[in-house]
């Protein structure tokens, strides 16, 4: 693609017109400045966004976030909404790691007091929160219990003593999406989930201790419980093998479904089913099971991280309580109300590597956050800052209330392995004051800070496009990489 293929709407918004390629049902809007736009032309991400615009019943436009990069079928950092009456749901446009997401927890513990204990703290979290390739969780559940996790989500953890009511209040959808039906997921999905609840996984999943480094919005930070110089914790993981299997099963099944409904798509990974068909409803129920499993998974990890804080930081006088600020999904399909051409309409918003970003006053926000809007959590790489932002009312109009989910990769894993050695990455980060616990040195090299975009640049684009506003910046001090 060339720069002339885009119509510039503003400094941070670009459009690929609906007539750019035959088969497009809507335009594609890219939220980026010219530099990020040029970077995103280097891989297949924008073509994947164009392909997504072929989905039947897609409305308004496909959105591309500034952390966009090439995925499979649908770009990572992509958002597409489809009409409930004549639109489709596409498992590949949500991704295999259903409800991969981020939990942010905060404390009133000052780093200056906790500094001597940080290494002990990250070691203790590492011992309580299993991570890495092939590592299961601390509990082995029966098929029946996994089915309950799938229908009840984080509420299962509440009943079993792994959560507080306050945790539940600050999880997207209160940690349980209604309409999950465990009879819609395969035995194989359950088998894969049975040993894995309460485990981090590998790849880009992490648990990270940060310090609140800078506050940009004092009022909002106070409401969120973020205080400058205090410790916070982020957990990034999803639905593990259970979610991967749900997506695999339905991508396979929908290969037949697209033939039945005569859908003509540019990529078999985008296969889909009508939202008002039995096939579509079945996937929606199955996807919700995986999403609920992921909410429970992050809550279990949060429970053990909190335990580690209490054990290790009991030596300092301040309260070591670690409380949930927010927990959100960034690979999911949600039925939401949005204004399309001035008219309120129910749509299925596919967010793949994109975060929901409701503005102030939205009815689905926790009461405490209604005034300020939804927290939007944007982790950087393990060597750079992460940001806490707030959704805006403009995002409701521009991006189906969606925002970026991270910094976004710029370098392939194979290139990263050639260019960086895991041991060197760890040494370098330690010199910068960041402890690293990693399951594999090869995995660490693939996640070196340099393989990601500059998160501050991504944030500038988000703010410039009015998708979210800044609250606080966090600096990493210890990271567990799966």
């Amino acid at each position, binding site marked *: 693609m060339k720069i002339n293929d885009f119509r510039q709407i503003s400094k941070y918004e670009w459009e690929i017109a609906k007539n750019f390629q035959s088969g497009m049902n809507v335009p594609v809007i890219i939220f980026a400045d010219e530099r990020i736009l040029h970077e995103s032309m280097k891989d297949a991400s924008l073509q994947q966004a164009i392909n997504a615009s072929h989905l039947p019943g897609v409305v308004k436009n496909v959105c591309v976030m500034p952390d966009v990069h090439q995925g499979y079928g649908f770009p990572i950092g992509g958002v597409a909404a489809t009409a409930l009456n004549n639109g489709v749901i596409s498992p590949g446009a949500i991704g295999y790691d259903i409800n991969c997401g981020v939990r942010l927890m905060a404390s009133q513990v000052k780093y200056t007091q906790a500094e001597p204990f940080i290494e002990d703290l990250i070691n203790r979290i590492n011992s309580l929160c299993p991570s890495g390739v092939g590592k299961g969780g601390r509990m082995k559940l029966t098929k029946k219990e996994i089915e309950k996790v799938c229908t009840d989500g984080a509420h299962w953890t509440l009943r079993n003593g792994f959560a507080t009511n306050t945790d539940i209040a600050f999880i997207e959808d209160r940690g349980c999406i209604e309409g999950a039906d465990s009879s819609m997921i395969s035995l194989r999905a359950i088998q894969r989930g049975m040993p894995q609840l309460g485990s981090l996984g590998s790849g880009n999943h992490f648990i990270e201790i940060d310090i609140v480094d800078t506050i940009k919005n004092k009022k909002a930070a106070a409401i969120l419980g973020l205080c400058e110089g205090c410790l916070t914790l982020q957990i990034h993981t999803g639905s593990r093998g259970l979610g*991967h299997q749900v997506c695999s099963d339905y991508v396979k099944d929908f290969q037949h479904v697209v033939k039945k409904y005569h859908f003509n798509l540019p*990529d078999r990974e985008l296969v889909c089913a009508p939202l008002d068909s039995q096939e579509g409803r079945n996937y929606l129920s199955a996807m919700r099971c995986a999403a609920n499993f992921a909410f429970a998974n992050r809550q279990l990890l949060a429970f053990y991280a909190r335990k580690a804080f209490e054990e290790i930081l009991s030596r300092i006088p301040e309260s070591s309580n670690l409380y949930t600020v927010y927990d959100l999904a960034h690979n999911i399909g949600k039925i939401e109300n949005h204004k399309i051409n001035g008219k309120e309409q129910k749509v299925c918003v596919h967010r793949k590597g994109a975060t929901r970003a409701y503005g102030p006053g939205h009815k689905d926000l926790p009461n405490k956050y209604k005034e300020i809007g939804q927290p939007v959590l944007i982790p950087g790489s393990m060597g750079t800052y992460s940001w806490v932002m707030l959704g805006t009312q403009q995002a409701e109009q521009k991006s189906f209330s969606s925002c970026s989910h991270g910094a976004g990769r710029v370098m392939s894993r194979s290139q990263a392995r050639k260019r960086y050695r895991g041991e060197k990455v760890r040494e370098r980060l330690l010199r910068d004051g960041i402890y690293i616990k990693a399951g594999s040195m090869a995995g660490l090299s693939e996640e070196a800070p340099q393989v990601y975009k500059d998160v501050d640049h991504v944030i500038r684009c988000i703010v410039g496009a009015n998708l979210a506003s800044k609250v606080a910046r966090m600096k990493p001090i210890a990271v567990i990489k799966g």
Partner: protein
Amino acid sequence: MRKNQLFPEVFEVPHTADAAIDVFGRSLDEMFKNAAFGMLSIMEINIQEENLGYENLVLIEDDIESLLVAFLSEILFIVEQKREYPSNIQVKISGSQLKSTFQSFPINSYDKEIKAVTFNQLNIVHVNDRFQTRLVFDI
């Protein structure tokens, strides 16, 4: 695009977020076998010497691409759930049916998890007497 040779007939292709390989074979049977080797080599699996014996796999799908995804997904399941490494893989494809035999070895550990085998732009073609395709794996 720079490709990294993993095996004869298997090349790793740069992919921003995930992993991709180009796979070739003189026959479909050989291409499927090479695809399995390619996928397993990405995972960097460390195995034990003890031979657990032979296993058989029979799969039927509507088309050849679906058969490839189903075959590789089965191998992933065996690795993740049974923690067994399929070695000396033999593949025989007749129409829409695949029969495979392999020897299993216990897995000590592996370095990279593959979440899924995708259909991303999957298209098996026959060019110059060789079958070939590109495969993208979700990492």
